[in-house]
């Protein structure tokens, strides 16, 4: 297979072709420092404030339509743009300087004060404009989860999100809202012309970025470079560079491996390839487990979900990752591949200790296999954090149990934020196993949790709070299963 030594993407109608490239140079550095496109701002350099939001356009999985997605330029490595189109705040205004409907709406509704967060909001709103035809308040809240504004209090920005659909569509793709969008054939064709099945190897003469195009190439490269950094969405790896100033070499990027972007479902399980983003994984999971909607709405933000992968969330191994408690409760398995072959590991055996996983050098997570439980199985997950949106869990419960004639069986309770790793609570599970889910059983389980878990105190919560709320979440589970959920506070008062 020939190797490509350059990265190509489209910016403002031009193909940008880069040969020499620092493997961890960010999109934001490229825009501001190399191109003088200083409209895109750095607010935090960790993907949490959204001042750097840009939009990436790419052919969808089938290759016959375009995806339009906001991402955080501050932690997105430039080389990952290969084969895509980058749209920045400077791209939106017309050639004569006419403001885009999103920009005009922000102006008319007084949506900017200091203006520093504004380009990021404009880009998140632009993504909304291209993806939703008639968003309501909750849709707007979700679209803006990844953007912080410290001046306005958000009300005028929400107003702008409604107003933008009423302003001039000049007929080109950029100004056409979602409802009017036909596939831009020419745009799609230009993007498809950039893609090929060559492995990319590019560097700055010292360090190297590799983007294999197949699973086989990936396994081979990883065998050759067992110490390589595996990069998927980069929403954590990006911070190793911007915050910890680590030097990563080589970087092996999973995003071009076609096989890894597949989602395969059968009667027993759904399998997510390691390249599947949260944005693509969540609708599939929600179809199977509708009760998880609140968890997934509160999980990160669109720019993060658009980049981050389900497998990356798991591989990262953080004790406060949001997907793992419920995936562990469901009995999820990981398919690990290396040059030597494939092995399957239950998720709960993957976490050895804080920051230590069972993944061996030369191995990568190829697929995440989520089993589909039998009818009558209750699946729930509750996340608790200081702020509803775009916050890291203080604790998170993933629960799975079969309920037959009111008696709980196969009880699995997995906890985030309650130990050095995501882990199950064996004594509490035993206290519920084979018993009706009544006050006596739940009280016993609540007491047993004290033996199962010894949460630490940190900035997100004290150990005492974590334990008390963990116990209360079992009470919530009981009420929830009994079909008398009190009104969810997350949804309270908010019209969908």
């Amino acid at each position, binding site marked *: 297979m020939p190797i490509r030594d350059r990265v190509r993407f489209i910016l403002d109608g031009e193909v940008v072709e880069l040969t020499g490239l620092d493997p961890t140079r960010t999109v934001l550095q490229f825009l501001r420092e190399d191109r003088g496109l200083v409209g895109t701002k750095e607010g935090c350099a960790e993907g949490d404030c959204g001042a750097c939001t840009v939009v990436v356009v790419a052919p969808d999985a089938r290759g016959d339509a375009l995806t339009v997605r906001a991402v955080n330029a501050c932690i997105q490595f430039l080389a990952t743009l290969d084969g895509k189109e980058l749209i920045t705040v400077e791209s939106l205004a017309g050639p004569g300087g006419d403001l885009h409907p999103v920009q005009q709406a922000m102006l008319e509704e*007084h949506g900017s004060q200091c203006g520093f967060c504004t380009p990021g909001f404009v880009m998140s709103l632009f993504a909304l404009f291209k993806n939703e035809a008639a968003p309501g308040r909750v849709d707007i809240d979700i679209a803006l989860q990844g953007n*912080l*504004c*410290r001046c306005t209090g958000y009300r*005028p920005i*929400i107003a702008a999100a409604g107003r933008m659909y009423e302003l001039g569509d000049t007929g080109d793709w950029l100004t056409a809202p979602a409802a009017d969008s036909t596939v831009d054939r020419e745009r799609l064709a230009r993007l498809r012309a950039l893609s090929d099945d060559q492995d990319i190897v590019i560097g700055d003469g010292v360090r190297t970025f590799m983007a294999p195009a197949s699973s086989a190439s990936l396994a081979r490269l990883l065998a050759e470079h067992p110490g390589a950094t595996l990069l998927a969405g980069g929403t954590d790896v990006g911070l190793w560079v911007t915050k910890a100033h680590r030097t990563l070499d080589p970087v092996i990027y999973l995003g071009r491996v076609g096989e890894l972007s597949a989602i395969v479902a059968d009667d027993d399980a759904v399998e997510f390839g390691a390249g599947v983003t949260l944005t693509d994984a969540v609708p599939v999971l929600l179809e199977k487990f509708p009760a998880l909607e609140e968890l997934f709405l509160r999980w990160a933000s669109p720019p993060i979900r658009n980049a981050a992968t389900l497998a990356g969330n798991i591989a990262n191994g953080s004790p406060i990752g949001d997907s793992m408690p419920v995936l562990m409760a469901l009995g999820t398995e990981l398919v690990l591949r290396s040059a030597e072959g494939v092995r399957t590991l239950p998720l709960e055996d993957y976490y050895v200790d804080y920051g230590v996983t069972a993944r061996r050098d030369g191995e990568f997570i190829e697929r995440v296999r989520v089993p589909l439980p039998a009818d009558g199985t209750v699946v729930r997950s509750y996340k*608790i954090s200081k*702020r509803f949106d775009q916050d890291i869990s203080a604790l998170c419960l993933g629960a799975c149990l079969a309920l037959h004639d009111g008696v709980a069986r196969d009880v699995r309770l997995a906890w985030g934020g309650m130990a050095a790793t995501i882990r199950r609570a064996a004594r509490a599970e035993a206290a519920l196993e084979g018993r009706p889910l009544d006050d006596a059983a739940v009280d016993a389980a609540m007491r047993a949790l004290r033996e199962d878990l010894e949460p630490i105190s940190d900035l997100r919560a004290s150990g005492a709070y974590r334990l008390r709320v963990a116990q209360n979440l079992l009470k919530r589970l009981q009420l929830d299963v009994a079909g008398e959920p009190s009104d969810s506070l997350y949804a309270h008062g908010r019209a969908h």
Partner: protein
Amino acid sequence: MPMDARTRPAPQGPAVGQPLPHDSAHLHVSGRAAYTDDLPEPRDLLHVAVGMSGEAHARIDAIDLDTVRRAEGVVAVFTADDIPGSNNCGPVVPDDPILAAGTVHYVGQAVFAVAAVTVDAARRAARAARIDYTPLEPVLDPETAVEQGSFVLPSETLTRGDPAAALASAPHRLQRRVRCGGQDQFYLEGQVAMAIPEEDGGLLVYSSTQHPDEVQALVAAATGRDAKDVVVVCRRMGGAFGGKESQAALIACIAAVVAARTKRAAKLRLDRDDDMVMTGKRHDFVIDYDVGFDADGVIRGIDFTLASRCGMSADLSGPVNDRAMFHVDNTFFLENVHILSHRCRTNTVSNTAFRGFGGPQGMFAIEYVIDDIARALGKDPLDVRRANFYGEAPRNVTHYGQVVEDNMAPGLAAELEASSDYRARRAAIAAHNATEPLLRRGIAMTLVKFGISFTSTLLNQAGALVHVYKDGTIRLNHGGTEMGQGLYIKVAQVVADEFGVSPERVRITAADTSKVPNASATAASSGSDMNGMAARKAARKIVGRIRACLAARYGISEGRISFADNEVRVGDEALSFEAAVRLAWAERVSLSATGFYRTPKIHYDRETFSGRPFYYFAYGAAVSEVAVDTLTGENRLVRVDILHDCGDSLNPAIDLGQVEGGFVQGVGWVTSEELCWDDQGRLTTHAPSTYKIPTCSDLAPDFRVTLLPNAANAEETIYRSKAVGEPPLMLGLSAFHAIRDAIATPGQPAPPLDAPATPEAVLRAFYGGAL
């Protein structure tokens, strides 16, 4: 989203009173508004990074910078010994070293600066130093500071009446200790400055600062120059909120020292984490109160001890704590009161200005007391608030001797009580809580009375510079800075109306110490009051000269000459404005003028804490309704009604933005924004991943904000408008008290909830204090 029709008072002029967009809105939305880091970089620019202390309190034994100097891309490294002039960036007291000398006083204190060819090289190199310390005992919280007598400034007291006797004889009495947390400004644009050497020792400094004059003075002192040698320019900031009032100077001084020493342009832009660790925040307070009251809840006597975390130096802590003392009355008459204010020195970052400047903490204290009284008596807190409002003489004099001349609180409370349907909703909430044990609701009204003027009387001065060009266009400059609050468009509206031209003719220019000297900080909500007046005076000088010139030329009285609609009417004849200007120019009339304003009526004796520190008061009222999950303590704002007094607004769209944004920021302060330090004095919430300001979904789904109509300021402010920058922030206290209401049990004492009301704090309070 339901939204009341916004009150649009009749505009007062063609431009003044119109809801014009922010002057930079078209630039903001298209990415073309240039912030300091966006400016074109001079040739050979050096990027600077700061090496910070890892210790809260320690003696520096040795600094080994060899590895830093040898790191890739590094050009020079500087310590305190390399500062050519004064090693101080303290604004009031010279106790703030630019780079630590001998001893470090907090984790994050700047110890050395690295200049390198790229940002990345500088930041990597800054981490390579080895510093040997001998640890010293740190003081990490205000309580310990009080015990040890560790203060940055002497404690202050203010007494009126005979509080001891009033307390002793009061029918009811309550005592409690309560805390309110600090708050990070979290401006989206981090601290940044770029210093450029000019010929003959000159320095041009682009600084993201609310106070260019102070940066000029401190940069001059640090680099061994005079004020005349240093120019400081700021076109706009990406937010400031007080965080760039004094503490922008540290960043500018470091950049300037590097530029002065290397003779190359130097830029320092702090990474977000470093910014949050290195620069000061709102003071957290420990409040002890002892209150005596009667059966109606009327306060007979009250004693407050306020202890604030000032951090390692004085910074602006003196006036911040003074303002807290001035605002422990809020809208209430305190007949017998004693306040003891401790300004605690701690080995944490030096706390500084933040929107409200001590006012929020003072109001937090008294509103908490009122709430406790109401619950002790089983009364609706609104009734107890009302019973304590300022009223007729003698109940109309503040504890510092200023007469409350326009007591708007009772009227605002009555109007909002009706328009928000407060009583019926309170009854519905009580019924809900009686039957729904898990998801409880609560409601509260709080009000704000905020004193407008710098308490340091001498700061209440402003200057402006206006040029009119031969083509009839105008260039406007004044000492105020633009941080998003819309000051520049408001002042431009004033100037446009003075000349009778459309606002597009007025070009607004960057704050620049070479144009208007000796300007005060843009702070204390005073920007449009003072700069609007100064600019009007400048414009009127020029208009007067043109009028006199035309009167002489046309031989008619000046009274028959008027400026409107881009024209000058001379008797029955109309000239275009530019023609009139050109005539005046041809007659050799000066078309440039300065304007100067000093706030009238104010005086105040710092020794006795008495006088009239404030020109007037700004008022507001808010009703917040919340829901609280009693299994987790999570809480959510459901509905908000606000009625706010902006006087006769200069620009109702801008003012509405200040009210809405200030309120949400205030809610953040008392709910989700929690600053945490570990036992070594390290801030553990130093990025948006760990420090949680409100997001879009936190805005109440039902949010109704109204600007009070027909509310001309009783004082002769610019167009009878009122300052609006800070006062609405304190309306956020209504959300805090709604949460208290939700978790209170009717007939029981109020639950002991500290701010911020994080889920953990709320659950703890719900369980009576222990989890």
